[in-house]
């Protein structure tokens, strides 16, 4: 016996206290149970909420271990454009983050942006393992995503872009201060590096007949929705009333963008806010008119916040009822002087000019039967907002005229199945051509879904076996977007008894988390950022983003915290020999459920199965 070791003295033939030196192994407490725990990795709410279909939780878990390169690879499996999405996606993931119920949501977008901005690793394009060749029409986010995923699946991909440069709406529709050109260029280079060939200046259906695409084995349509619903006052020959998209396009194309000093923007979309902030940077005084409440705008709430900080004026609950026009504008001279700073409109002073926008105040009415809130005008509340230019941002429709006429439609959009296939076999579609919210995330997600659809279709056509996964099994939580990793069946993350169900907040155990507020993005000062087109939101540093990632609860997924092992009163839980996860001895587990109760992230379940 070593020195200092406690010894139990014997008297009356017994020690001081009841001592047993045999082990508890003969006591098979497992026979007592009528219910037992299982390890069961589930789906985090962020994964299910992401329209791109990213294993966000998996990325966060790798970052928790500072495995930054692997985290980036996991992200790039599902999203080819993290630097872009980290900046301008409306991050539905954060809206669903369970941490928001505890303190504040994890700043997922900032983590994604940091990973997207990491210097790239140059490596050869994946080998072309498929003989088929796929055409992608349009190089907006849906086309880029579809081409990227197809190339990574081994297909040859040729992309046709009508504009001189690729990027689609990302290039012409998003202002420089939100998405700097070099960021977009790097992202597209990453996609090219996967072996996607992009041919610019080719408008399929105009300078390349649709029939020429018959040499391809499949086609993805991602040509977007550049044409728009008409705004009733645009048709009155008023050149001062213009689509906001055109204005943004002009500015992105390097033109000054024609506006007067007083710019009224009509609408509540991202485009409306982009127009206002762009006009502000050009020296104008923008006012955004929106018929509803601030929270009803479809624009990104943070972008609205930034616009307000920069000095954009918003008129909520205000609706346009008419344009005030004058042959001779009152302040003609002053206006001309200011217009001289911009491109002077053609036609000179003789043509009718906007001098103001007639508006009426709105108020919320009762909730409609379908749950939507309607607004009604307040009698006698009309007012005039002085204006030199009106930019409209009220929606876009599909540029249907150039698409093959035989494709079935539903309203403005193409009819597609769950995998994005149109009514013509081998023709798939995504992005703004299909019936989904017109966001970057949905575009990237629909492109990926179509890539899976194309792979499935081509392999079936070639008589090959395809994964027998039904559609919900491919979708995160059964209803999120599809995972190409699940389709490929090569998940680098080891999962235990995976259950494709979203873990709710009340399945987590908050006792094991500390309150720790989220780190807000860095911004340039409003006075500074409102004056030029340099990026206004500066994101987070690498270390700050890593700290954010470590705030993740890892909902539903075992991250080896070992609490189950610590609490097991029967010592029935051991570290798994692989180094990840645990092995549970049912011979000794008596089914008390402590492990399940204590698991902070709902990665264990009590079950009667197997008993």
């Amino acid at each position, binding site marked *: *016996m*070593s020195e200092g*070791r*406690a*010894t*139990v*003295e014997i*008297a*009356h*033939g*017994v*020690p*001081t*206290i*009841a*001592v*047993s*030196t045999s*082990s*508890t192994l003969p006591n098979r407490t497992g026979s007592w149970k009528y219910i037992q725990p299982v390890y069961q990795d589930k789906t985090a709410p962020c994964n299910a909420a992401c329209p791109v279909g990213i294993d966000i939780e998996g990325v966060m878990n790798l970052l928790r271990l500072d495995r930054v390169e692997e985290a980036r690879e996991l992200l790039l499996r599902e999203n080819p454009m993290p630097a872009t999405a980290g900046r301008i996606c409306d991050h539905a993931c954060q809206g669903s983050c369970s941490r928001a119920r505890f303190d504040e949501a994890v700043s997922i977008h900032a983590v994604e942006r940091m990973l997207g901005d990491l210097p790239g690793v140059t490596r050869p394009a994946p080998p072309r393992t498929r003989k088929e060749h796929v055409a992608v029409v349009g190089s907006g986010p849906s086309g880029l995503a579809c081409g990227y995923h197809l190339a990574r699946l081994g297909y040859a991909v040729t992309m046709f872009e009508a504009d001189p440069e690729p990027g689609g709406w990302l290039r012409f529709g998003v202002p420089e201060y939100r998405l700097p050109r070099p960021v977009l260029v790097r992202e597209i280079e990453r996609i090219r590096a996967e072996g996607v060939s992009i041919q610019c200046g080719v408008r399929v259906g105009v300078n390349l007949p649709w029939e020429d695409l018959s040499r391809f084995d499949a086609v993805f349509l991602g040509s977007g929705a550049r044409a728009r619903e008409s705004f009733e006052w645009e048709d009155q020959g008023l050149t001062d009333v213009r689509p906001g998209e055109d204005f943004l396009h002009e500015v992105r194309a390097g033109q000054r963008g024609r506006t007067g000093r007083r710019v009224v923007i009509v609408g509540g979309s991202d485009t409306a806010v982009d127009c206002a902030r762009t006009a502000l940077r050009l020296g104008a005084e923008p006012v955004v008119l929106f018929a509803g409440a601030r929270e009803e705008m479809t624009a990104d709430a943070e972008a609205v916040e930034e616009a307000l900080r920069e000095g954009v004026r918003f008129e909520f609950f205000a609706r346009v009822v008419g344009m005030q026009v004058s042959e001779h504008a009152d302040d003609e001279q002053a206006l001309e002087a200011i217009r001289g700073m911009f491109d002077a409109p053609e036609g000179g002073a003789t043509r009718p000019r906007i001098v103001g926008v007639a508006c009426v105040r709105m108020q919320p009415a009762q909730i409609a039967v379908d749950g939507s809130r309607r607004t009604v005008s307040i009698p006698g509340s009309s007012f005039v907002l002085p204006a030199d230019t009106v930019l409209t941002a009220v929606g876009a429709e599909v540029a249907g005229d150039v698409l093959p006429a035989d494709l079935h439609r539903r309203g403005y959009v193409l009819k597609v199945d769950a995998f994005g296939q149109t009514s013509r076999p081998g023709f798939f579609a995504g992005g703004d051509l299909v019936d989904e919210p017109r966001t970057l995330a949905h575009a990237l997600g629909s492109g990926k879904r179509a890539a899976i659809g194309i792979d499935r279709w081509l392999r079936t056509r070639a008589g090959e076996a395809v994964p027998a996964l039904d559609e919900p099994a491919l979708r995160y939580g059964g209803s999120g977007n599809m995972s190409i990793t699940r389709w490929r069946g090569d998940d680098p993350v080891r999962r235990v008894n995976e259950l494709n169900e979203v873990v709710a907040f009340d399945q987590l155990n908050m006792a094991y988390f500390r309150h720790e507020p989220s780190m807000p993005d860095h911004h340039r000062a409003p006075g500074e950022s409102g004056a030029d087109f340099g990026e206004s939101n500066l994101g987070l540093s690498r270390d700050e983003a890593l700290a954010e990632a470590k705030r993740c609860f890892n909902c539903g997924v075992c991250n080896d915290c070992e609490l189950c092992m610590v609490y097991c009163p029967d010592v029935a839980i051991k570290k798994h020999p692989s180094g990840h996860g645990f092995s549970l001895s049912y011979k000794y587990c008596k089914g008390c459920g402590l492990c399940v109760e204590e698991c902070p992230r709902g990665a264990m379940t009590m079950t009667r199965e197997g008993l």
Partner: protein
Amino acid sequence: MKKVIVGNHAVSWGVKLARAEVIAAYPITPQTQVVEELSEMCASGELKARFIKVESEHSAMAACMGASMTGARAFTATSSQGLALMHELLHWSGGGRMPIVMAEINRALAPGWNVWTDQNDSLSQRDTGWIQLYCETNQEVLDTTIMAFKLAETVDIPVMIVLDAFVLSHTAEPVDIPDQKDVDAFLPKRVARHKLDTGNPQAFGALTTPAVYMEMRLRQQEAMEDAVGALEAIDAEWGRQFGRTWGAVETYRTEGADLVLVTSGTVTSTTRHVVNELRDQGQKVGLVKVKMFRPFPGADLRRVLAGVKDVAVLDRNISPGHSGIFAEETRAALYDLPAARRPRVHGYIIGLGGRDVTPATIEECIQKTRDAASAAVPEREDVWVGVKS
């Protein structure tokens, strides 16, 4: 260093000076201040102990047991319903021979709901294998707290320090607080005789068959018997070092007394005052204070009470259907005396549920004893004093 502190804080200071390593407790009036002060001492770093907040007294004792089995010096405090909730684990810690120290602030048990003092809560735990030490003053509380750790660790039996709710727990008195280095010399770090040790895997408290259970109880009983002498030795050592001794049993002006009052807790101070007054009037009245209730110092009581004519035991407690508990124990202890030297024992039930015990209450007990002494047979075993007729 002298400080004016309440009884509860005298406990906290004692625990701090004893360098307790783990404190687990759940708050209850009137005990709360004890652990409140300790939690602040832990938070400020002046006491390097692990303070564990728990969800019940049952868990508090469970945490102390776990800590004690790793060799740590563990402490808790409670009162009344909290102590009752701990009951099962008092047997575990007593039978498991874990030298835990607990401060027990005497509070009446519900119903009716009552936060004031009486001794039924601690006395209900008489048979759990815990040493019980009743205190009269805040100085005694502080000194006893430190000695309690030494006593517990000497005989491997847990110790309960008992003090009256409010009358002592919330009453401020000047207390001499010894220097840490002197206390360290008196009470070195605990050396556990048996503890959890991964280098020597053992399980404690496992199934014990009829073939050995009785011997284990015998050993517990022998250790309890040893505790009387151990307290005497520790008390003497304390006296040598700090100039104060308390004794398991203290006599006060018993020389030549024909009537001796037996008391415990703060009633003792009031009784001292009455004894002084009656002695001034020429009455031969004395006082015996019982500090140690378990193990019961029967031999000491026989020694100091032999030959006294009448003994009046003041009980701030009642064993329903029987009698006051100190009276019952005193009667049993004195029964072994030869009949000629055996006093008559009169029991008085006083001050239950925090009812004031005044000099008049004690004088009434004395008068009733005098009256009963002239009768051939006492009217009844115990007399309730100060109750409405």
